[in-house]
């Protein structure tokens, strides 16, 4: 097929070299992908009512496709609702847009000073899309709860639990072996050199109901095989249920596991994670308080096991010196939460900082935002974000701005130049 006459020789050469990319650079594909993106946003917004923000994000944006059911309350909903409608997900559309733009960059754009602005704009948009993908893949969000006067050196993930075995025989230090949720979801036998026993995961669930049965009634379901620990002594019945993705959702993850000493079974335990922290078990019922620390003794050592929010220990600690909150006069609407903290590093350096709305504390790649506060209970909660790709959106915006400036300036200069020469001819 003959190339258009306005194509430069270099573009024609590139189109020959990357001929296989030409179909992917089609402008109609761009428009289709952008239209589908709007459909995706519309559907995800509707679904947010059903599954919450996190559910919609996970189901539609952090996936290659999602399945949508037409709402029953819409027109002809009674007929259309049962039909599963596949919707292209964020990864599919975002990835396709990147490919489409890259292909266009190579096979459609003229690399000349005249078109430099267009190239910069498109490069900025590619960077923005890549940055978003990198953020979804690499960003970690956690929380840090500190009581006033207390010092904390670990973060807890908002989502995801770990089965932690903690050896506390030594009064000064604890040895911790933690199995993250993704391992627990795989069921099977896990071995770790620091543990004096092997762990066989029999069942894991992201959420459950539970109740203590009267002693004469035998528990059924996941805890039926349990013969050790709190679930056995309190006769706990565990009833699995789906994960609640809503923002107010309280998920009680559970795991049933067997410990083995060589080939010999030491028993079957169950552990449940309290979404607000395992120290709350004692307040619910003293008979299940040990869910925060179920003792296991082996070789003269005391180990405790608990299912808890996944933790990340830091090489520094943060002490909460004071908190204050202010409200709009005559209302209960807060306009400022403020935490005064002292950050101490392992090499005995320290610095004080004030953390309040829009003024986070940044340290070693992590950003601590003021998230929640309870002045009555004297504690503060920071949302802690680690995003190695946080600079990419800024760079992308700068590139797009330069591209726009370049393009407009170029056209303006050309217009002014033509205008001047036209006036000159007229004169």
């Amino acid at each position, binding site marked *: 097929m003959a190339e258009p006459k306005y194509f430069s020789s270099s573009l024609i050469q590139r189109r020959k070299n990357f001929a296989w990319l030409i179909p992917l650079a089609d402008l109609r594909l761009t428009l289709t992908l952008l239209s589908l993106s709007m459909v995706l946003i519309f559907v995800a917004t509707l679904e947010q009512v059903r599954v919450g923000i996190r559910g919609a994000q996970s189901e539609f944006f952090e996936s290659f496709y999602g399945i949508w059911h037409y709402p029953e309350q819409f027109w002809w909903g009674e007929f259309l609702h049962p039909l599963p409608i596949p919707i292209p997900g964020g990864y599919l559309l975002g990835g396709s847009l990147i490919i489409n733009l890259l292909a266009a960059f190579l096979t459609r754009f003229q690399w000349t000073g005249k078109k430099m602005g267009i190239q910069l704009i498109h490069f900025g948009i590619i960077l923005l899309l890549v940055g978003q993908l990198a953020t979804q893949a690499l960003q970690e969000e956690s929380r840090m709860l500190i009581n006033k006067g207390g010092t904390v050196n670990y973060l807890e993930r908002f989502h995801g639990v770990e089965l932690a075995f903690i050896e506390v025989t030594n009064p000064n230090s604890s040895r*911790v072996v933690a199995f993250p949720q993704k391992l627990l979801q795989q069921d099977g036998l896990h071995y770790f050199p620091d543990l004096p026993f092997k762990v066989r995961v029999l069942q894991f669930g992201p959420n459950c109901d539970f109740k203590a049965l009267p002693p004469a009634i035998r528990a059924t379901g996941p805890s039926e095989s349990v013969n050790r620990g709190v679930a056995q002594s309190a006769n706990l019945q565990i009833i699995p249920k789906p994960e609640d993705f809503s923002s107010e959702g309280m998920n009680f993850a559970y795991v049933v596991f067997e410990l083995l000493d060589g080939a010999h079974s030491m028993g079957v335990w169950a552990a449940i994670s309290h979404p607000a922290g395992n120290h709350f078990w004692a307040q619910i019922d003293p008979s299940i308080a040990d869910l925060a620390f179920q003792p296991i003794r082996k070789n*003269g050592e005391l180990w405790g096991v608990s299912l808890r929010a996944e933790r990340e220990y830091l090489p520094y600690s943060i002490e909460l010196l004071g908190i204050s909150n202010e409200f709009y006069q005559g209302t209960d609407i807060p306009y400022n939460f403020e935490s005064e903290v002292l950050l101490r590093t392992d090499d005995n350096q320290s610095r004080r900082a004030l953390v309040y709305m829009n003024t986070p504390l940044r340290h070693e790649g992590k950003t601590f935002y003021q998230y929640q506060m309870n002045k009555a209970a004297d504690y503060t909660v920071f949302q802690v974000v680690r995003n190695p790709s946080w600079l990419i959106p800024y760079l992308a915006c700068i590139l797009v701005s330069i591209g726009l400036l370049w393009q407009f300036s170029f056209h303006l200069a050309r217009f002014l130049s033509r205008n001047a020469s036209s006036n000159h001819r007229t004169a």
Partner: protein
Amino acid sequence: MKFFSSFLILFAAMALFIGSCGENEKARSYLTKNEYEGAVAAWKLPEDWGENPSALGIMAGSFHVKTAEGPMGRIGVMPFRESVDISTIINMFAAELGHPDYNQTSILSLIQEIRLENRSFELVRLEDKKANTEPRSALLALYRAEGQTWLFPFVASRKLIDEQLENFHAFLSSTILRSGSTPLRAINPSPVPPSTLGHQPTWEAPDHWQRKPTTSIRMGNYVVSGESGESLDFSITSFPGDVGGILANVNRWLGQVGMDATDESGLSRYMSDRMIDEKPAKLVIAESNDQALYAAILFHEGRSWFLKLMGDRNLARSEKKNFIGLLDSFCLGDH
């Protein structure tokens, strides 16, 4: 076609990239500051000892001796949150072995102090004064530290205790005990004060049952004597919670009358349903060659009530009707 194949290749490459961005999930191990606030009790078991996980109840640990005839004897670890009087603890076992109640003075002659691994343990050995055949002994070791008391009871035949003395000492030496700001497992062995109970239970005991002074544990305390010197011990006790549940308590009692522990499926051999004070309860009946245990378990409003008759089997059989009559007369006084 060319469009789709190119698209698929690129898309697969992109999916691989995104997939590889996630962390490779594996178990992690690290050292951190010890933040555990509870009590620490750890030990090494002698090779010929085994665990009784279903008999834990209020104990932090429960063990038996592995013998050719099967598991024998009962060894336990019981933590108490505070420094309790030694006579209170000894009296928990004394009545069942036919001993009189001890007070702080009379107990002194029984206490022997030993030092193991630079720690001082108080030892008391009680011999069975009731059984003529298969006499049992209770070897009780107490360790006190940081306001906490640890009891290590070893109840078995006299012969087995003699044979296992060295193992028992090695076990005590191996223990690592540290008190914490929160209780380990057990409760202080005293009933909740009457003010928190709000009401007092009542019952009608046969006239020939000899009432004994109540103790910090026993709100009902009787001895029944037979014509040939045999005797029965009857007690009424109450604790908050389920004190380890039915299985743990029944197994503890079976051990006290020299019977093997059972499991959930074997409980029905000893247990039946019964109404006490119009509330569903459990009646436990177990008899060995010369000993018998008749007991009732009632769980009500977060508390456990135990009414237990134990001792000579023949005398127990003749008193069974009176025991059932007492159960029928028992009233919690809450209505």
